[in-house]
Structures are given as C-alpha cells and as structure tokens.
C-alpha cells in the first residue's frame, strides 16, 4: 500500500514538473542565456537564510548546474519508481524540490505556494513504515488546514461581507487579461459575471463555504471522497473565475483517497 501511494505521488510530481517545463519555469529556463539579476527574499527568514548561504547563486549562476538540476528534478520521479529500494534517491528528490521551490519564488518576485504540496509529500516519502503512515496522515491534515485556513481568514477579516469585495477582486485580477484579450470567450464570460453583483457575491460565498466544508475532515474520514471532489471543483472554478492554475495543489488530494482503494489495487496487481 505504501509503495502504491508513493508511486501515485511520484507520477503526479512528474506531471507537475512537466507542466513547469512547458511553462518555461524550470531553473535552467529561467537562467539561460542570462542568469536572473533580481532576488526576492521578501520578509521570509527562510528565504533570507537560503540566499545568505550562497547556494542559490552558486547553482543558478552556474553554466552547467541549472541544466543538471533540472534533468535530475525531472528524471528522479521516474527513477524512484523504477528503483524503489533506493531510499537515497527519494531524499535527493526532496532536497531538489525544496531548492527549486525557493529558487523559483526568489526569481519570480513573488512567493507562490502552489508547489508546496510536492515539497511536503516528497518529504513524507523519504520515510518508511509507521513514520510514513503518520506523516501521510499529517499531509492530509495539512490539505484540510489549507482550505479551512483560507476560509477562516476571509471570514475573520470580514471583507467577504462587503457587497463589492468580489467585484473589486475580479476587476483587479483580470485587468491584464481584459486589456490584451477583450473579445475572447473567457473574458466575455467574466465581463458578464462582473455585471451581475448578486452572482459575484454568490460565487464568493460558495467558494468560502466549500473551503469551510473541509473542516469536516478533521473529525471524520468517511466523506473524504466528497472532499476530494470538492478540491477538484475548487481548482476548476479557481481557473474559470480567477484564471488561476492551482492544479499542483491537488497532489495533496491523493491523501484523501481511501486506504481500501490502495489495498484493492494491490490485490488486483498481485493477481
């Protein structure tokens, strides 16, 4: 069961990394032919220490190292699945994921959180036996925490009760898109949505309610399949309404899959 869970994670990680490659977002693509000139550690102490260590500059400003880093990052998930008895590969993959996550955000000029699911699960997969089971469970709680925390922040700050809150978010979020592609089908849909104040508020409230529903997962596991469907729906609507691609976070969704599903897979695999 542990191995199937791992393989599921590494397959997902490989897909996500291929998407990063397609998006020109891997280290070698960001640093060739010219190494990035700006760094953005912001107020995050971890980023400041990461930059202070000199590791970022040593690798990103190198000529061969960024390419080597990306080749390893892309090939390790496949290698790990082929050679599951080599735990060192899993540790190397985890270290590379942390490095990539910090480096990408340092270069991008904003600290994006989408890749954090890969980083967490890569860490979990470094362990075996009881520790793996415990940390896999912890990753599930972290996914629940992400959604519930996002909902509680919106309620606590009270801005969702402002009738124009969602409209202002949409105006600010889509200005670039409307400016460049005013006649596309998606921008026409968004303009239509923004013209319906009641509907925009309903969209916001539905989103917050959906996020809040993940609270149930803290008390019971018996509706995890519904929470997984909720996470997929959230990610889909996040793209439709906000044009934010957040499918990377769905990797944590595999912790919501019931254990008996993995047991059945194992049986059918044996037979």
């Amino acid at each position, binding site marked *: 069961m542990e191995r199937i869970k791992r393989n599921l994670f590494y397959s997902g990680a490989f897909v996500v990394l291929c998407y990063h490659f397609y998006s020109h977002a891997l280290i070698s693509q960001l640093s060739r032919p010219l190494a990035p000139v700006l760094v953005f550690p*912001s107020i995050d102490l971890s980023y400041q220490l990461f930059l202070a260590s000199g590791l970022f500059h040593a690798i990103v400003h190198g000529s061969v190292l960024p390419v080597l880093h990306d080749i390893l990052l892309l090939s390790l998930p496949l290698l790990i699945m082929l050679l599951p008895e080599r735990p060192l590969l899993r540790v190397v993959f985890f270290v590379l994921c942390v490095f990539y996550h910090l480096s990408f955000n340092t270069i991008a*000029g904003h600290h994006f959180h989408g890749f954090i699911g890969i980083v967490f699960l890569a860490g979990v997969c470094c362990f075996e036996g009881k520790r793996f089971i415990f940390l896999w469970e912890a990753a599930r709680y972290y996914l629940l925490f992400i959604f519930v925390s996002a909902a509680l*922040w919106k309620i606590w700050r009270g801005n969702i009760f402002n009738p124009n809150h969602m409209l*202002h978010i949409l105006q600010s979020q889509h*200005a670039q898109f409307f*400016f460049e592609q005013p006649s596309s089908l998606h921008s026409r849909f968004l303009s239509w949505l923004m013209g319906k104040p009641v509907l925009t508020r309903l969209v916001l409230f539905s989103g917050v309610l959906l996020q809040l529903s993940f609270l149930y997962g803290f008390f019971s596991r018996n509706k995890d399949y519904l929470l997984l469907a909720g996470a997929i729906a959230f990610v889909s609507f996040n793209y439709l309404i906000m044009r934010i691609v957040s499918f990377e976070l769905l990797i944590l969704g595999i912790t919501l899959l019931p254990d008996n599903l993995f047991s059945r897979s194992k049986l059918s695999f044996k037979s």
Partner: protein
Amino acid sequence: MYLTWKGVECFPFVHWGMYSGKAQAATTTEVLQIKISDKKVCISCLPDLQGAVVNSSFEWYYHLQRNSLEDTTSLVFKDLLSKFPEKIYQRFKRNILNRPDEIVKYPRWLFTYLADMRIIENPSLECDIVKVRYGKDFCLDSIATIKAARYQYLTYP
C-alpha cells in the same frame, strides 16, 4: 497555527489568506505592456507560470526603480541578520540584497527570457505601464502610458 495567526510567513509555514484582505475599488488600474521588436507580447497568453514570472518580477523591478534602486528588503534584513560578525554580515548583504548595478540589468534579463521564442528583427524591449479605466460593460480605456523600461540589444551578452 501560531505563525498563521500572526500573519507571519517563514517557509514551510506559509500563509493561506489570499484574497481575504480588503480589495480596493479598481475602476482605474495599471497593466503592463511589453513590446519586443516593436511587437506587443501578450502576457496573458503565456503559460500561467511564465506569465506570473513576467508580471511579478517586473512589479518587483518597478518597485525598486521607483525606490531609487534601493532594496527595501534591507529594512528587514538589518533587524534579522545584523547580529552576525561584520564580515559575515557583509557577505549576507551581498547575497540577499539587490545591488543597483544588478537591478538595471533586469530589462536585459527579461528580454532574453521572453525573446528566445520569437523571431527577432529589431532586438529591443519596451516595457510600459498603461493606466486603464473600466468603462461600460467592463471594457478598458487607456488613460495614460508611463515608460518603465527600455533595452536595446547591441552585443551578445
């Protein structure tokens, strides 16, 4: 939980409160317009992550430019790392803060990051901030254009 409550970010303890802050009325807002070789680059057509890199890194560059090329991270940096011995502190400073001579190279980096997928006739980059206003049916009208960055590719770097 404590760090989330405090609104502090320190990887891996990140803050998930996006879009919870007060959204200002954005009837007038700013968008980025990039031209390479006198042709407009459609930033919203780029793959999601690439578009995010272009927008966010430019925003950071523009902020530094308006701050007279002085890195505002230094305000936090001094508090956190000034307790280290002077030699180490200077080394940290060199690695963490953006130097003015590096900041001015940003347009060249942006050009090379975007231009490798285009056929270049006149190797040049123009970045403008366009002030826009939402009109009827949420159509955008340009109000003003501010020149933000220029780069002319003369020799291969």
